[in-house]
């Protein structure tokens, strides 16, 4: 080592050697600064090539020889590929990424991707100092950038997009992964979840998320945000509770989003629709309040009962129409859907009279327009309805416990009330609906008194003359002579909707008739059939 003698500088000279025996290939392992990797802390490490790319590059190896192989398959495949110009890149092991596992199973994992273009224009050398003071230079063969691999679960691209859409609403971010885990678990273990759910139901109390009997969630005053944050609070306590609340909240969320979808209606949506007439009457304020408790009782009742208490439902509809007109909240939006449902059910039941269809049409349009005019506040039916409301005080049911009157009776009665209301406050401009109304009036006048009467004795020939089938001895006799029938068949013949009797009454009456007739019995297909011979 020679040293230069100047006082301000001191230099030491070393020889540089480039060893020729290149049995070892040197590579660079580069880590990101932010990862704070300290190699001296590694106790043990394993490294291997990541061969997962082989599947993509290499073709599926079909069975060679004997079973499943074809003669000359390879050549044909190659010829085919050449014809189409498909160039398959070779799978080079040298270029595959590395997988580095530090400190065993529980330690970190890194993936090392080869950086291209390192050795193209300049060469890198590793200078190490030997014990004899000389430097040895080794060329760098490849450069690999090592990045740590996440062990925690991440969202896929689709899920990430979804969450991005909800970023303004979701407050509790911990729940996102939780729900994802729950979703996955649901696919696998449904029973376990249910068991847990039933066990933990009490804890969740008034959540009502899982067993949703009615859609009055909004009445409970919980928006998705609230549910999330409250769920977050709960979730901190116990993982199990968290899981179930997560489920509940998750089930809630789609519901609330459904509701949100229903809410959307731009101003211009309903502009082109026809309306009956415009009236400037403002609605009475008492209606919505009364309507609300009615609705609350109405909903849990279920749709089946609606067929029995149609009068009430008709009036409920009127209430609802008003409600809609009044409130611009989600409840109002919900009821038209529900009421529409009921309405459809009712209308499907009664297909006989034109009156019914008229009423259907009218009330349907009324409902619709009631919904429409919520924003405009000039509903055509409102005038009629409002007055109907005022005039209806006597007949308005405070509770849904109207006794089961004959269905067609009630419908006609309701229609008549409508007419009365409209007649009293007749707005300007009578067009076809008015004509319809007029037509209805005379026909509805006759049932009016009958509508107000108490339910008639089942066996008498009741005034609803429109129904074809009467539950009389004559009718039963006719049927039984014609062919043997079971009691079920007979009941089917005398449908409650047609005869105007309730099912209980029908059964009683039929039993009486059969006693009187005393038909002969025969067992066909293990079922008791009755028949009569003339």
């Amino acid at each position, binding site marked *: 080592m020679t040293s230069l003698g100047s006082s301000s500088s001191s230099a030491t000279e070393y020889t540089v050697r480039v060893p020729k025996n290149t049995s070892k290939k040197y590579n660079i392992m580069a880590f990101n600064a932010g990862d704070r990797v300290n*190699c001296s802390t590694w106790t043990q490490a394993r490294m291997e090539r990541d061969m997962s790319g082989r599947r993509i590059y290499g073709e599926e190896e079909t069975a060679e020889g004997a079973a499943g192989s074809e003669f000359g398959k390879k050549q044909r495949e190659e010829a085919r590929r050449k014809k189409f110009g498909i160039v398959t890149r070779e799978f080079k092991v040298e270029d595959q990424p590395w997988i580095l596992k530090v400190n065993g199973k529980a330690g970190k994992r890194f993936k090392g991707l080869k950086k291209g273009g390192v050795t193209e224009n300049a060469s890198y050398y590793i200078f190490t100092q030997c014990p004899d003071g000389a430097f040895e230079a080794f060329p760098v063969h490849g450069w690999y950038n090592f990045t740590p691999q996440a062990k925690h679960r991440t969202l896929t691209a689709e899920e990430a997009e979804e969450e991005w859409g909800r970023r303004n609403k979701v407050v509790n971010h911990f729940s996102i992964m939780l729900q994802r885990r729950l979703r996955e678990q649901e696919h696998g273990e449904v029973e376990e979840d249910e068991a847990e759910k039933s066990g933990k139901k009490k804890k969740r109390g008034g959540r009502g998320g899982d067993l949703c009997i009615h859609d009055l969630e909004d009445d409970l005053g919980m928006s998705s945000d609230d549910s999330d944050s409250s769920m977050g609070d709960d979730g901190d306590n116990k993982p199990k509770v968290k899981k179930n609340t997560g489920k509940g909240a998750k089930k809630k969320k789609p519901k609330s989003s459904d509701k949100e979808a229903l809410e959307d209606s731009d101003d211009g949506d309903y502009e082109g629709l026809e309306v009956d007439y415009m009236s400037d009457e403002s609605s009475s304020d008492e209606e919505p309040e009364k309507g609300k408790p009615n609705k609350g009782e109405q909903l849990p009742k279920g749709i089946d009962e609606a067929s029995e208490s149609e009068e009430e439902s008709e009036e409920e509809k009127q209430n609802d129409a008003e409600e809609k007109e009044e409130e611009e909240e989600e409840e109002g939006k919900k009821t038209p859907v529900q009421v529409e449902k009921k309405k459809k059910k009712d209308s499907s039941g009664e297909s006989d009279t034109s009156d019914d269809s008229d009423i259907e049409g009218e009330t349907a349009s009324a409902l619709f327009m009631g919904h429409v005019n919520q924003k405009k506040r000039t509903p055509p039916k409102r005038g009629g309805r409002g007055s109907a409301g005022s005039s209806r005080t006597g007949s308005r049911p405070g509770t849904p416990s109207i006794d089961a009157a004959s269905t067609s009776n009630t419908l006609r009665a309701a229609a008549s009330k409508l007419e009365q209301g409209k007649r009293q406050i007749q707005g300007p401009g009578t067009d076809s609906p008015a004509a319809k109304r007029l037509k209805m009036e005379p026909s509805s006048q006759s049932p009016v008194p009958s509508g107000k009467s108490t339910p008639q004795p089942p066996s008498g020939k009741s005034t609803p003359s429109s129904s074809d089938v009467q539950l009389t001895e004559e009718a039963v006799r006719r049927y039984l002579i014609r062919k043997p029938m079971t009691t079920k068949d007979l009941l089917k013949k005398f449908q409650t909707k047609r005869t105007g009797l309730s099912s209980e009454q029908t059964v009683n009456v039929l039993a009486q008739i059969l006693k009187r007739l005393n038909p002969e019995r025969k067992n066909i297909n293990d079922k008791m059939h009755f028949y009569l011979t003339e």
Partner: protein
Amino acid sequence: MSQNTELNLTGVKQSQGVWLVKVPKYLSQQWDNAAEKGEVGKITIGKKQGKTEVHFSLDAELSALGAAEEKDGSFHVPRDHPFTVQTVGGQTLAVFSQSSTDEIRLEGMVVYRAECRPVVNDNYMKLKKLQIKESTKPQRISQQLERAVTSVFKPVANHDFNMEYEKKKKTEGKMVRAERQVVLDMLFSAFEKHQYYNIKDLVDITRQPVTYLKEIMREIGTYNSKGTHKSTWELKPEYRHYHSAEEEERESA
């Protein structure tokens, strides 16, 4: 295949620091031409006015060697190369080596990064000029031919090819029907090698006329008109007993 090799961490444990030096291509080429001993030059590390300076000077022989190969010969490979030294700066760079025995060793950590810079003088400029000339030459060039190519006309069918074909046909002659049993033996041995065969390939193998062969095949085999092996013949189930490939492997292992 990939081996999960244990990383030899001795280099790191000794905390031996290495330098990562970026060297220009021409210099590394010279280094490759170095003598057996491997000495390529000298490096001087000095402190000048408080700053560390590293300087590399190429061996004279190597410098001259480079020049002799060139056409001009009027320059030599630059000798003096100062190193610009920088610290690694946050990023962790480690060096691992792969030996021919597939052993992976972690050699050490990089403590300094350096760039070997040439001194920009006339000599260097000449070198660069040469390099540029080399790189701008197009890889494909058009040459002018002295004589026009007369060997390729436009035949309807290739004369040579035709003649070849006819000759082949004459020598081989028509395919004669061999004994049925002989043909069957040939077929069975063929089907032992592969499961599916095209009729053309079978004709090739057995040298039998097509109709005769088809007759025999109809007897012992079935024709696949659909599926992955589209228009191929295979033996009837009762005639074959293929093991699956796995079983064969297990048997052989």
